[in-house]
Every structure is written in C-alpha cells, then in structure tokens.
C-alpha cells in the first residue's frame, strides 16, 4: 500500500510543480489511476465491496473525464503557467517538504492517535494540505483548478479512511457535485480563453491599422 501512496504523492508533485500545463494535466492521469488502484486495494484488503463501485466511479471521473476536460481548457492559450506568487525553486522545495516530511509526520500522528483509521488517511491529509498550499501560491487559473482537484482527492481519501462504510448514495452525490463544479470551471475557462483571444485579435488589428496609417 505504501508504494501506491508514494506513487500518488510523486505524481501529485509533478502535477503541481510542472511549468508546462499540458504535462501537468497529463500527470493527473497516473495520479488518478494510482488513486483508483488504492481504492480497489483498500476495498480488497478490508473486504469493503462498496469501494469497488467507488473505484469504478473514480476511474471514469478522476482518471478519464477530469484530464480530458482540463485539456479542453488549454485550447487557445499558452501552455506555460502564469507566474506564481512564489518563485519556482522555493515552490519545489516547499512541495518536497509538504509531500515527504508532511506525509511521514501525518503517518506517525495516525499510528499514535488514530490506529484504527484506514491507511489512506495520511495520504489524504497530505494531499489536502499540499493542494491548499498549491492553491494559495498559484495564479494560473488551470493550476488553481488542479489544486482544487488535489484537495478534493485528499478529501475523498479522508472519507474512505474514516468512513469506509459511508452510504453509497452520499459518496456518489459528492462525486456528482464535484463533476458539476468542474464542468462550471471548464465552461468559465473556455469562455475566458475566447475573450482573451478576441482581445488579442482586436489589439493585433488595431496595431496593424496604425502601422498602415503611418
């Protein structure tokens, strides 16, 4: 299990820190796939059959639908992220600290105070904290959605770890909420990109007409 969690955290790091947005979005695929594997494994180890359904739902929504929608957001725009509020080396250093030290700290905390909680707790809480740090430091709208996605994945893991027998209907509704939110995000970004493109074309035409007048 530990290897799966480390793989999730590694791909989270790539997703969060890659300057190229396409690479960042594509890194979400293995990140989400490992989450699906973790959910299936937890279901198998703890004999919780309802988690298989959740795993399938995660596969469709988190590993397939989400990256496709995010790739759509990259249409009509530069693939390099907008400059974040902290420098890139500092951001990388912070990410390594949160994802490695943070994870181990949470793991120790869990084994002392919450021994009965399922193993995904540490990874979930780390993802939540890391996603929030990322959210605070990024200015790019696609990166902000990625941070939201990471936070949401963290919450998803926390729910599984603490309430594995949660009624399926609630879990499905939470995922439905998540999809609705993401759809709205995509709608807004596509519209924003269109507006930016229109503005650029307008500026270009204006500068052309000025040149011709000269």
């Amino acid at each position, binding site marked *: 299990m530990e290897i799966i969690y480390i793989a999730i955290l590694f791909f989270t790091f790539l997703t969060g820190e890659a300057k190229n947005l396409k690479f960042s979005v594509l890194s979400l695929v293995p990140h989400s796939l490992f989450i699906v594997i973790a959910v299936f494994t937890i279901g198998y180890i703890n004999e919780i059959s309802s988690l298989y359904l959740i795993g399938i739902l995660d596969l469709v929504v988190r590993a397939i639908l989400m990256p496709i929608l995010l790739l759509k957001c990259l249409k009509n725009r530069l693939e390099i992220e907008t400059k974040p509020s902290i420098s890139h080396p500092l951001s990388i250093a912070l990410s390594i600290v949160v994802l490695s030290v943070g994870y181990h700290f949470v793991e120790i905390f869990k084994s002392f105070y919450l021994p009965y*909680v399922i193993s995904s707790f540490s990874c979930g809480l780390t993802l*939540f904290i890391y996603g*929030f740090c990322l*959210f605070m430091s990024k200015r790019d*709208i696609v990166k*902000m*959605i990625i*941070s*939201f996605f990471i*936070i*949401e994945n963290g*919450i998803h893991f*926390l*729910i599984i770890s*603490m*309430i594995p027998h*949660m009624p399926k209907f*609630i879990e499905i*509704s*939470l995922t439905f*909420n998540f999809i*609705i*939110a993401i759809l*709205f*995000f995509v709608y*807004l*970004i596509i*519209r*924003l990109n269109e*507006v*930016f493109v229109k*503005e650029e074309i307008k500026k270009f035409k204006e500068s052309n007409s000025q040149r011709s007048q000269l």
Partner: protein
Amino acid sequence: MSFEWLIYFFSFIAPSLASLIVFLFGKKRFIKELISILSISLAIFSTASCWNALNLSDKKALLLTQTFYIDGFSIIMQLMVEFVALMVILYSSAYISKAYSHRKENFHIYYSVILLSTGFMNLTFSLNNLFWLYITLELGSILSVYLIVFNLNKESLKAGFKYLILINVGILFSLLGIILLFYMAGNPVMITNIGEVIKSLPRNIALLSAFLFIIGFFTKVGLIPFHLWLPDSYAESPSAVTVFLTGAVTKLGFYGLVRTVTIFSFNYEEIKILVITLSSLSMLFGAILAFNQKDIKKLIAYVSISEMGFIASALVLKTYEGIFGGVFHLINHTLMKGALFFATGAIIYTCGSRKIEEIKTLIIKMPAITISFFIGTLAVGGMPLFASFLSSITIFLALTNEGFLLVSILLIVSEFLSVVILLKTAISIFWQKNDKSKVSNSSVPFLMIFCTGLFVVLLIIFGIYPEIIYPIIDSATRGIIKIID
C-alpha cells in the same frame, strides 16, 4: 409518508420542476415568467402550510424518517429565499430584457437556474443529515455561477471564477469538519443529534472541527478574511442577481453556521470569542473599505460585509436575545440590501454605468428610486422607525450583556461609518443641481420600482409593527436553541 409532507415538499419540488419546464419550453414569450411566479407561489404556500403545522404541533420541529427536519429557523429561511426569488424574477422580467439584450437567447436558462437554485436552497433548509445538507448547499451555490457570469464579459467571467474556486475550496473545509464529526460520533451526524455529539467530543477535536466549520461557512457567507469573492461577484453580476446572492445565496452560509458553529459556541467559549473577533473585523473593515470604492455596487457590497459581521457575532451569543437579534437582522439585511441593490439596478439601467463619478453626470431624476435608496441607506444606519433599528439595538444589548462591550461599540461605529459613506454617495448622486436632469420615472419600468418599493415598505412595516414578524422569529430562535439543549 403522509399527504401533509407531500405538501411541505412542494417548497423544493415546485421550483425544481418549474426549472426543468422553463429550461425546455421557456423560450416562448411570458412562459418563463409565468411558470416561475407560479412555482414560487406554490413554494410559498407549501412553506406557509408547514409553518401552520408547526404552530399546531406541541413540538418545536417537524421530523420525517430522520431525513427531513423542519423547524422555525428552516421556515424563516425558506420564506426569505422564496420571497427574494419572487422579487428577483419580477424585477428581472423588466430589467434583463433591456440591460442584457445580447443574451436574449439564454433568458430562459437564467430563470431556470434561479428556480433550480431556489429548489436546492429550500431542500437544504429541510434536511437533517449534515452530509446531505453539504451536498445541496454546495449545489445551490455552484449554480449561482451561471447567474454571476450572465453578462459573459471578461470581468464577470473572472468574478465568477473567483467565486467558484473560493467557495468550493472554502466549503471543502466544512466537509472535512463533517467527516471529523462523523468519525468521532461513529454514526451519521444529524441536526437532531449534533448537540449531543458535540458534548461528547474530546476538547481538541471539538475545537478543530469548529474551526473547520468556521472557515467553510465564513467563506460561504463572505466574511473577512474570507471575503475575496464577494465584492467582485456582487459588482459584476446583474443587479437582480446581486439581490439573489445577498438575500438568498449567502444566507445558506448563515444556515450552515447556525446549525454547526452556534452549537459549538454554546459549549466552547473559545469558539464564541473567535467568531466574535472575526465578525468584529468584518464589521469594522467592511465599513472602512467601503470608503475607498468608486463602484457603487462594490461600495454596497462592503457595507453588506460589515452588516453580516453583526449577524455572525449575534448568532454565537449564548442568549435568547442574541440569537433573536441575529435572526431578525438576517431578515433586515435581506430587505436593506434588496432595496439598495434594486435601486442601484435602476440607476445602472438608466445610466449604463456603475462608476459613481459617471453616474453623477448621467443620472436623471427618479423620485421613487431616490427615496428608496435614501430609506435603504438610513435603514443600514439603524435609524428608528426601520426594522434594522430594532435588530441592531437587540444585538447591541445582547453583546453588552454578554460582556462584549467593545464589540457593541464597534457595531455602532461601523453602522455610523456605513451610513456616512452611503449618505455621502447618495447625496452626491441624487442631490445635485443639474439643469439637464428631467423628472423621469417612466424610463424605469414599473416592476423595477415596485420590487424596490416593496423591500422599503417591508423595512418600515416591520419597524413600526414588529409584532407581525416576531412570532416567526421567536419560533426560529426557539428552534435553534432546542437543538443546543
């Protein structure tokens, strides 16, 4: 399930069904308005029946199979949202056709989203399980994004994005709080058992959980320091939508706050102090930041933040008076902001600008709107004769009796600052010698004047005859206190 419950369910079924009908067939002339008004009227009837049943029963709440829970506070929130939705629909029918004519093809979606959002909000106020409450609360909030970005220009899209990302991330903290409570309780946490669950929690866990709820619901309400989404969203959305946001959508956050943080604050003094400190920040900085605004809607938005600080501080007080004052001010806040934003909408409708300096040069004389704006402004200042005077004074006394004298002084100071900036703006806009100005009420459609006027009339009626509204506020207050007991 009895037939009576089916009638109660109409409060959320009617708007949701109407939303679907309007979405499918609303392109035809008047259908969208007619169906919207009918469905909201049905919802109001349903809530009124519920209120009647609650009055007849000995209990302080109606409960159905542990899934639905309706008490006085649920009813007051439902009525408020339904009234606001009705006003917004009436106002929009006159307003958006001219101001947003470039979105003519999507008017039916606009109405459909308002109805669906109202349906989800009413469902939120009827649910017992905190997880369900979270899901419907989030859906109700997310849908509002479509309304904020209705203009589809760069600024509105940016404001919509800010709203969506901040609300979503913020509200996830409250989900974390719910998960923590669920884990510690070992069974689903309901409104009916949250009081017992909180009492049985270890102190650290309880404080952590309350802190998570505070982050989540303060973001939803838009209180400082979680307010970043609010001024832009209020400013960039159509004025009718701004009233919907301030009168209904932010009230969802208050509902969540009352159902969770209020109960924590009754058991833990630290939570009460934390909430009152944060609310004081909102009161003061909301009023101060309003001074710096050049956009009339942003100015009112900051004044709104300041006032929401009063409400939040009152709702965590451990007294009947405190909660009563908080609930009363919740209603008054809706009425005051409704009057101000509708009046502002009429100004924007005629001038085509939100900038105060531009409005000064473009404004035409609109006596009804001018009077409404001035009355709204005086009500914000908590002047006698207006309902806000009674609620402000109740909160002031409750804060003082609980030992928060400094905060109660801050309340008066921020009210004074708010009324000064609003009066200054109103005088500079309406009270100028402009020979070009002509008296022209006809340029503002009757329905817009009617909706603005109705908010103003209610502010005065509830101020002069508060006994009309006292029973329902009393029932809401007792409903909140019952959960805590």
